[in-house]
């Protein structure tokens, strides 16, 4: 079994009001060195595959078709072996 860990992030060119609100909150907590917070989505999934290249192909396709909106988001992922 393979586990995919997928991050879906807003593109750098897209404003992230949530990230901005988090930065402001952190500043009011005294963490004044924090800048440019970006809030992203993290998605984990298991795949009943043994071939990592094939799993990568599947994950790419899943991200393109559903998990990320190409207008506003990009994605990256890692794949690793888990269990048997």
């Amino acid at each position, binding site marked *: 079994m393979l586990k995919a860990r997928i991050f879906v992030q807003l593109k750098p060119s*897209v404003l992230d009001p949530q990230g901005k609100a988090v930065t402001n909150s952190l500043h009011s907590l005294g963490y004044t060195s924090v800048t440019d917070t970006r809030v992203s989505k993290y998605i984990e999934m298991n795949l009943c595959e043994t071939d990592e290249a094939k799993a990568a192909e599947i994950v790419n396709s899943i991200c393109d078709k*559903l998990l990320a909106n190409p*207008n506003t988001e990009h994605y990256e992922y890692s794949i690793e072996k888990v269990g048997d």
Partner: protein
Amino acid sequence: MRISVITFPGSNCDADALEVFARRGHEAHSIWHKDTDLQNPDLLILPGGFSYGDYLRCGALARFSPIIAEVYRHAQKGGMILGICNGFQILTELGLLPGALMMNKSLRFICQHQFIRVESTNSPFTYGLKTGIALDIPIAHKEGNYFISQQGLESLQDNDQIIFRYCDAHGHLSPGSNPNGALDNIAGICSDNRRILGMMPHPERAAGEPMQSADGLMIINAVENYFENQA
């Protein structure tokens, strides 16, 4: 006219849309998202609400409803589609309209009366209206902040596809009259062929008594006139 309104799991403005058109004497059909027949509508409506609980991204999961194959077919034939609020989000996720609806700049759900300016009368939904007039149409959304790439925005502007912009009561555009941070104050856009409109404000909630505003009827009336004269 024959009107069809699709109900997705989580739609909640479907009954309002049906009611408003039925009251005006149109044949209004309710279509369940698992149906496979749109009942041959002159106008198809994707209503507001929270289809699939807004999971993943607003409108993203509606794409997998069985009726969507028919929505694409209707669009391909040049059929008229009106997507309101969540319906607009679904149309962008389907790729039938460009861009995306992002979280409001304030991070808040906004429910208020809002003025929008008619930017182009070259669409069935603004047919015969006057450019520059301000309509009072309520908004109710958390993800209505329209975004598109710079190139995409220029294309919308060059092709006169921006149909409504957020404005003040006098029809003036300003940052203060932009409730959600939408790029270029965009409240509604149409497709290349001008037959598909997506808008965040709810004309069906401004269709006269007992509602506070009747300005939504101007949009509905425009569609009726277009249908009579052009379709």
